[in-house]
């Protein structure tokens, strides 16, 4: 369904004769395609608007270069804007200088919290002694799921044995357990919830107050649509997020949600989930993400020329 942006722009610029500066008319025609491409990639409507405006500003009056076509030129500018919006620097997972490091995983139902909790624990296992804690006491077999994943990857696990519904109690017990077992990184898995569910959001606030975490990571499905911004801003307002995990990037979703989340909340995207396996996690890479959103693989060289 999705045609690479570059090809579309090539056809827009096919009619462009000769050389000289890119005219406003040329640029507007190109930007219509840019806008479509970004919206198809699920970038937030408003973010697209402001992006297109700033791209327009940069394109109009640009000298058409000898070395690359106008289409490539516009693509390179779009790419640069996307990268700068997402922040080029990798923001690492925070490890507190004073252990234990505390981390909470939060997000909508089914976004990938439980899997990501264990993935992160496994990732740091060489240098640390992480503990994952089951604080999803609601979803059937959620505790068991975390336990099995932890066992598979030889990560320490704490979860309630009885049928308690008291998340705070479990968290307190886990903190004591971690102290006894010298766990220096503690990752709390929480139940999925809607950003608009006030009671359940309040539960997270209480957990946050108790744990006082260094990291609160929002796990967002890369396939999320226009609602992503609202989800991220709601969680951010309530909890002051420190990072985002973008899950399920192993599929073919363009992942425009990432862009919008970063643009509107400023919260850095720290990790990318790239599979169901416990090793399938990577540091988030803004450049690769930008290429993915505009649907192409070879813009980095171009960007250097502009």
């Amino acid at each position, binding site marked *: *369904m999705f045609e690479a942006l570059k090809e579309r722009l090539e056809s827009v610029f096919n009619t462009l004769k000769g050389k000289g500066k890119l005219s406003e008319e040329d640029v507007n025609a190109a930007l219509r395609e840019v*806008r*479509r491409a970004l*919206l*198809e*990639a*699920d970038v937030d*409507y408003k973010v697209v608007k402001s992006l297109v405006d700033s791209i327009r500003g940069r394109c109009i009056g640009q000298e058409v270069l000898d070395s690359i076509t106008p289409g490539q030129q516009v693509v390179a500018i779009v790419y640069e804007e996307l990268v700068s919006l997402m922040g080029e620097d990798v923001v690492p997972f925070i490890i507190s200088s004073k252990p234990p490091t505390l981390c909470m995983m939060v997000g*909508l*139902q*089914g*976004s*990938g919290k439980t899997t990501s909790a264990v993935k992160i624990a496994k990732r740091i296992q060489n240098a640390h002694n992480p503990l994952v804690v089951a604080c999803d006491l*609601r*979803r*059937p*077999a*959620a505790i*068991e*799921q975390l*336990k*099995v*994943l932890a066992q*598979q990857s030889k990560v320490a696990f704490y979860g309630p044995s009885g049928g308690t519904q008291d998340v705070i109690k479990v968290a307190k017990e886990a903190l004591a357990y971690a102290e006894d077992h010298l766990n220096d990184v503690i990752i709390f898995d929480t139940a999925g919830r*809607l*950003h*608009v569910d006030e009671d359940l959001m309040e539960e997270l606030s209480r957990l946050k107050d108790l744990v006082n975490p260094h990291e609160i990571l929002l796990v967002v*499905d890369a*396939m*999320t*649509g*226009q*609602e*992503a911004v*609202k*989800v991220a801003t709601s969680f951010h307002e309530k909890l002051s997020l420190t990072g985002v995990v973008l899950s*399920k990037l*192993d*599929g*073919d*979703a*363009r992942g*425009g*949600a990432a862009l919008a989340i970063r643009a509107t909340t400023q919260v850095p995207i720290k990790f990318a989930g790239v599979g*169901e396996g416990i090793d399938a996690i990577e540091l988030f890479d803004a450049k690769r993400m930008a290429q993915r959103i505009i649907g192409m693989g070879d813009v980095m060289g171009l960007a250097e020329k502009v």
Partner: protein
Amino acid sequence: MFLWSKLKDSLKEVKNRWSGGLVSLFSGSTIDEEFWDSLEEILISGDVGIDLTEELIEELQKTVKREGLKTPDQLIAYFIDLVTERLVAVDGMGKEIVLDKSPKVIVLVGVNGSGKTTTAAKLAEQFHRQGKKVILGAADTFRAAAIDQLKIWGERTGSRVIAQQQGSDSAAVAYDALQAARASGADVLIIDTAGRLHSKHNLMEELTKIVRVIEREVGRDSMENLLVLDAVMGQNGFAQAESFHKALSLNGVILSKYDNTAKGGVILAIAHRLALPIRYIGLGESVDDLRLFEPQEFVRALLENNGNNV
């Protein structure tokens, strides 16, 4: 009848809870540029997608000329009808699963975390209440604790769960479950499958194998292959529907997590371009939270402002 109106109320209640009342964005008195812009914004924000949004707006603009519509109110009413009609035109839209074969086999498929297992429980509960005998087949043999999750739902809904160990062949589990359903004279077998991204060829193959095994036994007429689609999905939702449909020939879509503020607009493209009906909606995490899809309610909700655009 009573039951149905109660169901309708609960959808309203869920949506109202988030929106704090239904605010119309189209309060202006003239049809101007601003009107078209805000209509576009609402549709795109509702995940309708740029192509279909432009197509619908174009059609509406033609109608304005043809019918001489004057006020935004008239136009919106017309628009709701237009989109609703298009939905209703798809065969099976909002239609419940009929247990006309014994056993009827329902296969639930979808990407990871979309809501398949919970939806299996919800359907089991509905059939159970109708006095039907339900069997659940645990064909997600892959995800950690997926079998335990289904077993708990089995207990809660009073349905027998047929399962093997984790890691066993999913088609073999489906086959076993079918034999059990036949032997015990069950009215319906609901098969829960592992989540998989539609772009993964080998996993899609595994799924077609499950469906083939069942189909060979009971025939296609006895099956309902349904895609469970999370309402928060963006344009990728279309690719999901397209791929699963191509692989399995779906009988429709269940729109889960519609209690979210997300509008699920991508189903319009799914209905239009793939002629796939939306059958049910999921409105929460408990077994009671399943309703038939109602086209008009859906289109109204799509146009309602629940704070996204403020």
